[in-house]
């Protein structure tokens, strides 16, 4: 395939680096998950270990690693050990298709800040995320515990139900962008809010060209479905403590439990990144296209990185990438905070309410969204 060793090494490093970044964001999120809501609820949260309680994360990690490993007597051993991996793997794999920033052009090479630039990026994410159910099912069944089993059944039926609403809600977005590639979707969202109505251009200069303004209904449906897909409150019935002890991971302890934990947060990170990419312009700044950012850094970049002795386009490219990475992280960070915010605000659903919401509310509305988008695109000839 003409792949040189340099490419292989760089790609390997990239895969490792992005995986490590995703996994090491998890403790940070846990810290936010504990400190943030504490302030919402007028208490302090863990603040004794280290500055701001940050070393609590290290303490947690050490505890997870050194806890005793045990296997329940009724467990199916092979599956019992495989289940945490089966949960973590899809969560980590889905992140591979997310574009983090503009490519860096340096010394004649181009580095993409994305593991795999797939032209079916979006379906790839859905495909791999749908495999996440196996980990939960395997965990529940192999534990040999009725609570775990019930949790697994709830989780899988919930994930399958909401996957349908999620997939259908995105079809409208896909029709609008006319592509599956996440990179191209972001390119479509540069600049002002503008589209073609019956062949003539309509522009609204006070709105960015984001997907959320074109597909508000799809956004609400997608956001709701992601909460169910990631098993977060208000849809965390698979592990509802009051009824099922701890749901599908009742029989897991130590690092194996931690892997489920990382899997859940991994799904959350990918979901937040996907919401950002589909509806909020991805790494792009609102109103300002990457080309304009590059122009700006060509003018002003030398004061920051002039000492490295790189050529001007290289410096501008590096700084543009860093700018967009920061933008991407800020947007994704907001949605991650939103996940946590909702968790500590809304109570848990009842199981039949959950199923009703999935099948009788989200599914019909996503069909309505699809029909509406089709009608608008066909009759009003709206082209984004």
């Amino acid at each position, binding site marked *: *395939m003409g792949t040189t060793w340099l490419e292989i090494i760089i790609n390997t490093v990239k895969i490792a680096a992005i995986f490590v970044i995703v996994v090491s964001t998890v403790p940070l999120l846990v810290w936010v998950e504990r400190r943030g809501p504490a302030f919402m609820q007028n208490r302090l949260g863990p603040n004794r270990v280290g500055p701001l309680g940050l070393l609590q994360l290290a303490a947690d990690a050490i505890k997870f690693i050194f806890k005793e490993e045990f296997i329940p007597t009724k467990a*199916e051993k092979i599956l019992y050990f495989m289940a945490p991996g089966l949960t973590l793997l899809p969560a980590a794999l889905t992140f591979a298709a997310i574009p983090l920033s503009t490519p860096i052009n340096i010394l004649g090479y181009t580095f993409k800040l994305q593991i795999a630039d797939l032209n079916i990026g979006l379906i790839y994410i859905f*495909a791999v995320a*749908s*495999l996440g159910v*196996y980990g939960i099912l395997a965990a*529940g069944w192999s534990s040999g515990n009725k609570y775990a089993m019930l949790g697994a059944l709830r989780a899988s039926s919930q994930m399958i139900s909401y996957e349908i609403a999620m997939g259908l809600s995105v079809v409208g977005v896909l029709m609008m962008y*006319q592509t599956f590639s996440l990179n191209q979707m972001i390119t479509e969202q540069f600049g002002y809010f503008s589209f073609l109505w019956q062949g003539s251009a309509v522009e609204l200069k006070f709105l960015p060209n984001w997907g959320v303004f074109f597909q508000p209904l799809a956004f609400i449906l997608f956001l709701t479905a992601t909460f169910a897909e990631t098993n977060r409150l208000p849809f965390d019935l698979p592990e509802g403590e009051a009824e099922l002890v701890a749901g599908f991971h009742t029989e897991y302890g130590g690092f194996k439990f931690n892997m489920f934990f990382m899997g859940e947060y991994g799904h959350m990170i990918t979901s937040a990144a996907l919401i950002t990419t589909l509806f909020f312009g991805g790494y792009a700044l609102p109103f300002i296209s990457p080309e304009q950012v590059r122009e700006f850094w060509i003018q002003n970049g030398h004061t920051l990185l002039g000492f490295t002795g790189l050529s001007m386009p290289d410096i501008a490219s590096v700084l543009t990438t860093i700018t967009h990475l920061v933008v991407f992280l800020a947007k994704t960070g907001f949605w991650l905070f939103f996940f946590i915010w909702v968790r500590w605000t809304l109570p848990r659903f009842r199981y039949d309410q959950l199923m009703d919401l999935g099948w009788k509310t989200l599914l019909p509305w996503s069909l309505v969204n699809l029909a509406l988008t089709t009608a608008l695109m066909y009759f009003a000839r709206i082209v984004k």
Partner: protein
Amino acid sequence: MELTAADILFYLFGFVSVVSALMVVFVSNPIYSALLLAVVMSILGIFFFNLEAHFIAAAQVVVYAGAVMVLFVMVMMLFDLKREKEEVARFSILTVLKIISVGVVCGVLVGAGAMITGDGMGFIKVSTTEAPPPPSMLLKSDINAPTKQTTNPEELKDEVVEITQNPQAGVEIFTKYTDTQKLSLKLFSKYIFIFELLSVLLLVAIVGAVALARSKGGTHHVTRGS
């Protein structure tokens, strides 16, 4: 012969898929069978991906591994599987004979199909004329060639016309149909009738399943008129 990274991955995944496919049959626990079948389905998706059929690869994983097999596994986990396990665990001569006979019947069917259609069905080379080059060779040359990205519907229509009028060119043109747009264009123009027919078939299956679940006393008790 130069061994590329894609080749190594092909042999690796090919080996794993064959082993897991065999395990599906020989493992005693039905749940493991179902999970291994899901592995086989996912690896088929990887093969499609390797052949640059990205959309089909993703659809394969979403539909078979992500939805169908999940339901299988879920339902099986609700059963008490002791009897089934024992039956396979005994593994009498009869069982072995059964499995072998299934294999033989499949082989005979494939062979018969190849003889009747005369094009070998991709398994057996029947015609004496020069066979078209294998897809892998076409793909490799295709990668180096500059790919033409077109979203103009008129141009795409021309290609569809070309493929309908000249079936011999089908293999060569198919390698260009990596784009989902092109795939859907073909699906909704040339194969629209088959496509709609399949959707009706699925609808029949859904209605049938619902009817069965209602009439044979399913989990939900249906009270009429309430």
